[in-house]
């Protein structure tokens, strides 16, 4: 991979929790327009990595380089959209007491808070929300409260939220944190076709996943983490055959 291909890089990225290095001196490169899976055993720091990238956990050391030019040592969560990043969460969190469609509309808000005082959600935003909800198959549920959705539907709604935000603001990097866990086979199909579609549109997808079949099927590149450190990377076929990777997974 040449330098210009990397849309997101970490350089010596470190995050400590009470002395434990959850992410430890991690230097990785994410290729533009590809699906990159980050895998590793439980506690290997994958989710911490996504939290650091999205500003939910502060960076303790090193930095993140975006688009080859922007070097970040501090990321605030509400800055994510302006850096062209969007993400989903392992444990889905929605606005429970708001209608399904408002859960999507709220992320399409004007960036300036002052501007938002005078802005209505117009037909344009509603079309974006409609498109996103139709893609995940939740358009019929738009009027009901988010708290009335099933587990799988909640995951789909969160994905719709990310889709809406990325359609509106040209998000280049989309992070999916275990999007398939707990989904029915039909929903798994929906989500994997959404991920492929995003890639085909030229967006970069970072996928945190455990299911090896889905990783083989979807990813262009795989990065393996172990105890917060970089372990291996390469094409799915290469990496998933490697002995050290298998050992890390089996804990031998």
């Amino acid at each position, binding site marked *: 991979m040449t330098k210009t291909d990397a849309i997101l890089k970490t350089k010596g990225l470190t995050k400590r929790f009470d002395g434990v290095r959850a992410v430890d001196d991690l230097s990785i490169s994410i290729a533009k327009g590809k699906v990159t899976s980050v895998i590793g055993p439980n506690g290997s720091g994958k989710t911490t990595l996504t939290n650091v990238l999205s500003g939910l956990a502060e960076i303790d050391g090193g930095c993140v380089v975006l688009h080859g030019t922007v070097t970040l040592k501090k990321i605030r969560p*509400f800055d994510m959209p302006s850096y062209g990043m969007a993400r989903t969460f392992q444990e889905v*969190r929605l*606005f429970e007491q708001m209608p399904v469609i408002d859960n999507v509309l*709220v*992320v399409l808000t004007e960036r300036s*808070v002052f501007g938002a005082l005078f802005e209505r959600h117009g037909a344009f935003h509603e079309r974006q929300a409609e498109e996103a909800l139709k893609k995940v198959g939740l358009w019929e549920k738009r009027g009901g409260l988010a708290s009335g959705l099933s587990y799988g539907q909640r995951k789909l709604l969160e994905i719709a939220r990310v889709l809406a935000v990325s359609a509106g603001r040209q998000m280049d990097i989309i992070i999916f944190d275990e999007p398939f866990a707990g989904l029915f086979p039909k929903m798994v199909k929906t989500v994997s076709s959404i991920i492929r579609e995003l890639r085909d549109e030229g967006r970069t997808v970072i996928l945190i996943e455990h299911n090896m079949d889905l990783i083989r099927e979807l990813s262009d590149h795989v990065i393996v983490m172990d105890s917060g450190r970089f372990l291996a990377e390469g094409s799915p076929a290469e990496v998933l055959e490697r002995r050290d990777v298998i050992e890390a997974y089996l804990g031998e």
Partner: protein
Amino acid sequence: MEILSQLILNGVMAGALYALMALGFNLIYGVTRFFNLAHGVLAAIGGYAFFTLSKMLGLNIYLSVATGVAIAGLAGYGFDRLVYSKLRKRKASNLVLLVASLGVFTTAQAALSIIFTSQFQTLSETAGQEALSVLGGVVTRTQVIIIFSSLASMLGLAALLNGTSFGKAVRAISDDEEVARMVGINTGRVTGYVFFIGSALAGLAGILVGFDTGIQPTMGMGLLLKGVIASIIGGVGNIYGGVLGAFLLGLVENLGIWMIPGEWKDAVSFLLLIVFLVFRPQGIIKR
């Protein structure tokens, strides 16, 4: 019969003022989840800002009202930036914030006493004012203005919350502040604006009280308590519930003193609060 309609009119009047207090209080509670006791002193700040501009500097009355309301809003915004937001950043518990807001309340009230003395001041030009007769009762022009500006504020706030994307962001933060932050809403900024709007409403209430009766630095506590009671019986954090609670409170406390002396008004209010806390703690409208 005449006394009954007068009591009802007085109840609606009081309700309109309590509603202004409850609106701001509930709005702020919704996004921050703490009882902002300093909300009361903002009414006094609004009243004294108007007093300074209109009575001492001789500014136009409408301009003074607008500026006084804005000053109260800015004061509330300032309290949030200087005190509460710093505490929230350190993940202080709601109890800490409550105590801090009591500190803000006391300090600001003391400052008002030092600057303006504790003397009672009236804001209206003509003390007696022409009285209008409505349904057998008597209301003054000022009181009509109070009711209309209170209703206008309620409608304006409802339009803001339901019609704009800012309103959606406010409801999102009220629903789950953490998620709001995660999906890219600048929660600190939105909260600051909410403090401005809520405090401006309290400032308006203070000015209107000043027109009706008068102002003094300690006026905040009474208004705060009524606003809080209205919020609790209406359903804490629900701004529409708070408005209902405010009018219910106004009516009950005024009708409650039909047969007994007027100084029992506050006792009636707190009795209503206790009845709600025991039998319907979630309030009229559950959040």
